[in-house]
């Protein structure tokens, strides 16, 4: 089981997406890359970052970043470690997290919201992902 936000975890995400014909079909029109910022909180004192590039039903890149300036992503999502953990374990709905400002979103969010098909395909493809949280 890979630890959240490590390279091993991201490699697992990329493999699940790229091996899934459902994702290839459901997200075949999607173009967009994401910078994820894990803000410091009591669980993680320093910020960390990772990047996922999704294009036409494939994950082209999924990497840990040392610094967010290494990429210029179309979308940027930022939340504390605790909030990310709640979202990824299903305790907190992602949209509610945005509406309560627990997660901040930069980029044309309407583009993401309108493409429910890609989102559903993404969630379905990653359903088998097992994540360990160090904190």
């Amino acid at each position, binding site marked *: 089981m890979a630890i959240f936000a490590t390279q091993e975890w991201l490699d697992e995400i990329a493999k699940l997406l790229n091996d899934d014909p459902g994702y290839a079909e459901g997200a075949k029109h999607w173009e967009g890359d994401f910078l994820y910022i894990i803000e410091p909180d009591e669980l993680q004192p320093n910020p960390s970052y990772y990047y996922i590039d999704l294009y036409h039903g494939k994950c082209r890149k999924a990497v840990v970043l040392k610094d967010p300036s290494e990429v210029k992503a179309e979308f940027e999502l930022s939340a504390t470690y605790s909030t990310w953990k709640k979202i990824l374990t299903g305790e907190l709905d992602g949209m509610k997290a945005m509406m309560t400002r627990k997660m901040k979103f930069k980029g044309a*969010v309407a583009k993401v*919201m309108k493409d*429910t098909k890609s989102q559903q395909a993404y969630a379905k493809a990653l359903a088998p992902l097992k994540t360990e949280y160090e904190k």
Partner: protein
Amino acid sequence: MWYFRNPLIVFGDDALEHLREIKGKRALIVTDAVLVKLGFVDKVAKELKHAGIEHRVFAEVEPDPSVETVRKGAQVALEYEPDWLIGLGGGSSMDAAKMIWMLYAQPDTEPDAIVPFQDYDARSKARMICIPTTAGTGSEVTWFMVVTDTVEKRKIAVGTPEALPDIAILDSRLVGDMPKGLVADTGMDALTHCVEGFGSTWRTDFTNGPALMAMKLIFKYLKRSYDDASDKEAREHMLNASALASMSWGNGMAGLAHNMGHALGGFFHVTHGKCVGLYLPYNMEYLAEVGAEVFAEAARFIGLEGKTDLELTRGLVRGIKDIARYLGQPSSVKELNIDKAAYEKALPEMVGRAFGEVSTTLVLRVPDEKDMERMFLYAYEGKTIDF
């Protein structure tokens, strides 16, 4: 942490008089030409005069208001600079008023780019009052707006909490003259709202209460309101019920009936209430596979009986179909005289559009494309959902 957002609700058969209490300089009344002719605008203007507030009227809202119309209204607002906008009418006028408000505050905004987690600073220029004349869309208590892209023939359903009206005035005198057809269509919309609000995965204690009360009132008063325009009690309770229903889904989410209904309405120009009311029973049959417990709770509350959750759910579905039949509403798409070949041709796009609405993922059982397509087809024929 979550929210339960509502405007100040002023209700009763003299509720319009609350307008005498508001403070401001200029009000832009957004409405349609029919309401001007029927004298509704004059009633509002009379109360604004008491408050010393000037007004102007933008009466170009059409059923299923277009993006062009709201842009025109926003231009009027930018020129007139009101500090109050008043949406007077059915859902079309109120939704148009809310969208005009957003475009007045942020003229560079694209209607379909409005999202719930960006700031629009709407109240920097004006505040909003909504006054419904149908019972109803409940738009007066929600932060959602639906306009139509007439070029792409699609509904744009968006929302931001800032678009929640400041005041909702439910004056029962304004719904007294509604003709039967309007009572039926808007009543089915209200019924769909409370059922979908109750069945949303975003349901809370706060949204459940209004949903259940709305369902109880609709089951008791909708047929009466339809039968007899002079039944003031029925008309008033239906007006209140439509607001309660929208307090529920407006703070939860709507569901499949609305998303499928928007798709049908966008393509085939069927009135909103007919569309959503038509799909509702099919969606409930689909959702009952995992959501019978939820619907059973509602069924018990409104006094239905049954031994199991599924039995109660089926009873609720039968009750809804019975109301629809009584009101002369279609129970299948083919009853709307929509050509089957045209419907099937539009199907891939309709499925895509239904999936383009976020609330498709916030229902008790989330369909995939295949299931969505089958639901559209079963609803065409009037076939009970069996998958």
